């Protein structure tokens, strides 16, 4: 037995040596290859973009690039199994809410020494990619939500895009009154980001970090409650939402908007393209406005988007860095934004969009640069989302199971507890 094992290990060692020698010989001839994961499902076919970018990369570095497209739905599981099994790619597009989570377990490389200028990128996204002062994700593209509305309905009723909450309420009530076949402003119980805008708009916070490092939720503060009460009140008291919307998710809002059953709704900057593709009849009848502030200005909207990150196990860290620089550079950064209807993550590239007169681009760009906001940056925030604490609160209020005070107290306790769990 002992002898067999020894023989096996000798054989293994011998094979390893031969293999090592063989790779040593061919290394001079074989091109190094980078593996890159790009998310798929929310933007149109990106193969042409990557064919060009990879050709340019091969030309300047001599290295090959293999791009794999991963559907968003499976991506989180795939990342985790890849991290655990040591099969992670060299470079990947990582959703901004996942970056702190993966960084905290040591899966991502520190990009701080790559000579980025933090000021050159959208601040909210830099913040989202920073853990303990180290940058783990370079902002690649940004997405944001604003209010999408039907210009034909507004013109028909003589309405103007609202600039305050009171005006928003009045406009919604007018539509509900005069166009009962439409849902004026659906308040979806399963969508957390529109709710966040109104909590932030009233001056509330989901959670703030204390000097000792622990977190305290602000969901039960008078400000947060004011925002929650306003939004849920639109559904409960003003009747501008619908009974079904209590259990709607954001995709249901978008589907009903596409079916011309909704007059205005908080939707993402990527939504108009998908809506128009599914219902070309709506062309020319859609526009957007930034989410109004309580007494003017804008209510903050969650800054979503993606980072480009480099995985810790990469065998070609220098090439990986150059590839990230290429994709976020002057040529391929704006081109990616243009082809996907996202916004570029660099402030200098973003300027071209804020001035846009396109009614489906300009307002989103204004929302993004004037009133974009990030979530609490802690790896534990993923668990707050996993426990669906905010949507559970919204649903309890919208279905009448609990009032604003009770539901927000429960939610605040759960957020505080979740963020302070050590594991």
């Amino acid at each position, binding site marked *: 037995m002992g002898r067999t094992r020894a023989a096996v290990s000798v054989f293994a060692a011998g094979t390893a040596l031969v293999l090592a020698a063989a790779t040593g010989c061919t290394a001079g001839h074989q091109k190094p290859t980078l593996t890159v994961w790009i998310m798929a499902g929310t933007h149109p076919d990106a193969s042409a973009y990557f064919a060009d970018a990879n050709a340019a990369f091969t030309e300047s570095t001599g290295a090959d690039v293999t791009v794999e497209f991963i559907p968003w739905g499976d991506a989180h599981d795939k990342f985790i199994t890849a991290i655990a099994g040591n099969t992670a790619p060299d470079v990947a597009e990582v959703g901004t809410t996942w970056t702190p989570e993966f960084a905290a377990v040591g899966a991502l490389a520190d990009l701080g020494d790559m000579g980025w200028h933090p000021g050159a990128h959208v601040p909210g996204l830099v913040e989202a990619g920073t853990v303990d002062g180290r940058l783990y994700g370079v902002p690649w593209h940004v997405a944001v939500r604003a209010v999408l509305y039907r210009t034909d309905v507004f013109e028909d009723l003589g309405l103007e895009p609202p600039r305050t909450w009171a005006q928003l309420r009045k406009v919604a009530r007018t539509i509900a009154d005069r166009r009962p076949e439409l849902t004026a402003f659906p308040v979806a119980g399963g969508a957390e980001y529109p709710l966040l805008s109104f909590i932030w708009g009233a001056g509330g916070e989901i959670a703030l970090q204390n000097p000792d490092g622990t977190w305290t939720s602000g969901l039960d503060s008078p400000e947060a409650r004011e925002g929650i009460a306003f939004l849920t009140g639109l559904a409960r008291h003003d009747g501008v939402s619908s009974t079904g919307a209590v259990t709607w998710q954001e995709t249901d809002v978008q589907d009903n908007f596409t079916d011309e059953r909704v007059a205005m709704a908080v939707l993402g900057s990527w939504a108009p393209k998908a809506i128009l593709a599914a219902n070309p009849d709506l062309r020319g009848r859609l526009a957007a406005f930034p989410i109004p502030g309580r007494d003017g200005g804008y209510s903050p909207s969650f800054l979503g988007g993606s980072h480009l990150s480099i995985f810790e196990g990469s065998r070609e860290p220098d090439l990986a860095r150059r590839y990230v620089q290429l994709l976020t550079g002057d040529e391929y950064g704006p081109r990616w934004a243009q082809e996907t209807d996202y916004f570029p993550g660099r402030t200098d590239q973003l300027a071209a969009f804020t001035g846009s007169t396109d009614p489906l681009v300009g307002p989103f760009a204004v929302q993004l640069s004037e009133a974009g906001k990030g979530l609490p940056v802690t790896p534990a925030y993923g668990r707050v989302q996993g426990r669906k604490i905010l949507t559970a609160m919204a*649903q309890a209020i919208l279905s009448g199971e609990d009032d604003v005070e009770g539901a927000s107290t429960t939610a605040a306790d759960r957020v505080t507890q979740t963020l302070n769990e050590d594991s």
Partner: protein
Amino acid sequence: MARTAVPVRGGPAVSVRPTPTRTSRRRHRAPLRPLLLLAPALAVMGILLLYPLVRVVLLSFQDYTLANVVSGASDYTGLRNYTLLLRDPYLWTVVLPNTVVFAILAVGGTVVLGTLVALLLQSLRPLSRTIVIGCVLVAWAMPAVTGTYVWIWIFDVDRGIVFQLLHGTGLLGAEGHNWFTDRVSFYAIVVLNVVHHGFPFVAVTVLAGLLTVPGELHEAARLDGATAWQRFRHITFPAIRPVFAVVTILSTIWDFKVFAQVYLMPGGAGSNAQVLNLGVWSYIRSFAQQSYGTGAAIAVLLTALLLAITLVYLRVLFGSEELR
């Protein structure tokens, strides 16, 4: 064993310590052959069933998060996951009642409806029987995910058939009713879905049993003036009791661990905390919150509960002596 004076079959009758003769060697080798033949199947089952099972039990004694997945390190915490779970009022007031009450209603509904359909099928002529079985099997062949979405559409708040029916008859206003927010109406839909999906299996299995009951027994009972119910109760049921045992146990196991039928309903993936059952709770704890240890502990609890219930069933249905 070898020191006794028991005669070895075909070998020397008396021997204190039998020498390994050819016959005894063959006897020793014999048990190995079936094992060898079974080995491929056992290996596949060991890899696909036993290993994950053992892993889940081990996980349930650990504090296992994403960091552990990455580092591969184990952090054993003894019974901590279990004590935390069993002390959680959420388990006792929401998850366990949801799981158990739902399973009782669903198993009852499935078995009763399935038996009634089987009796109907038995009384039909071959051609019409084939047609009815074909229709019934469509419900069974439908994947759970598809079936669940159909039921969600039927009860859709704004456009569902149920809304249109109730609105048309004036029972419900234009604002509609959201059936998915309330725990009772939520589970009523799940029961409909699961009974609809599960009764064909019961019907076909019970029909197979019914066809084995000798016709003379029914004829004799009819001559004695027994009613239909009496004939079912005293002839059919005792004759095919094992068939009922099998369909009840299988339905119980399936209905205790329903997942897709709850998870895919609006609010069923966690935003309505009132409607989770053990299976969905385990999934959400493990994968949405990356607390794999707690999720595994819930799964182990569910398995233990199912084993206990199955044992009780077997005892009740067969009596203790038949079990052996």
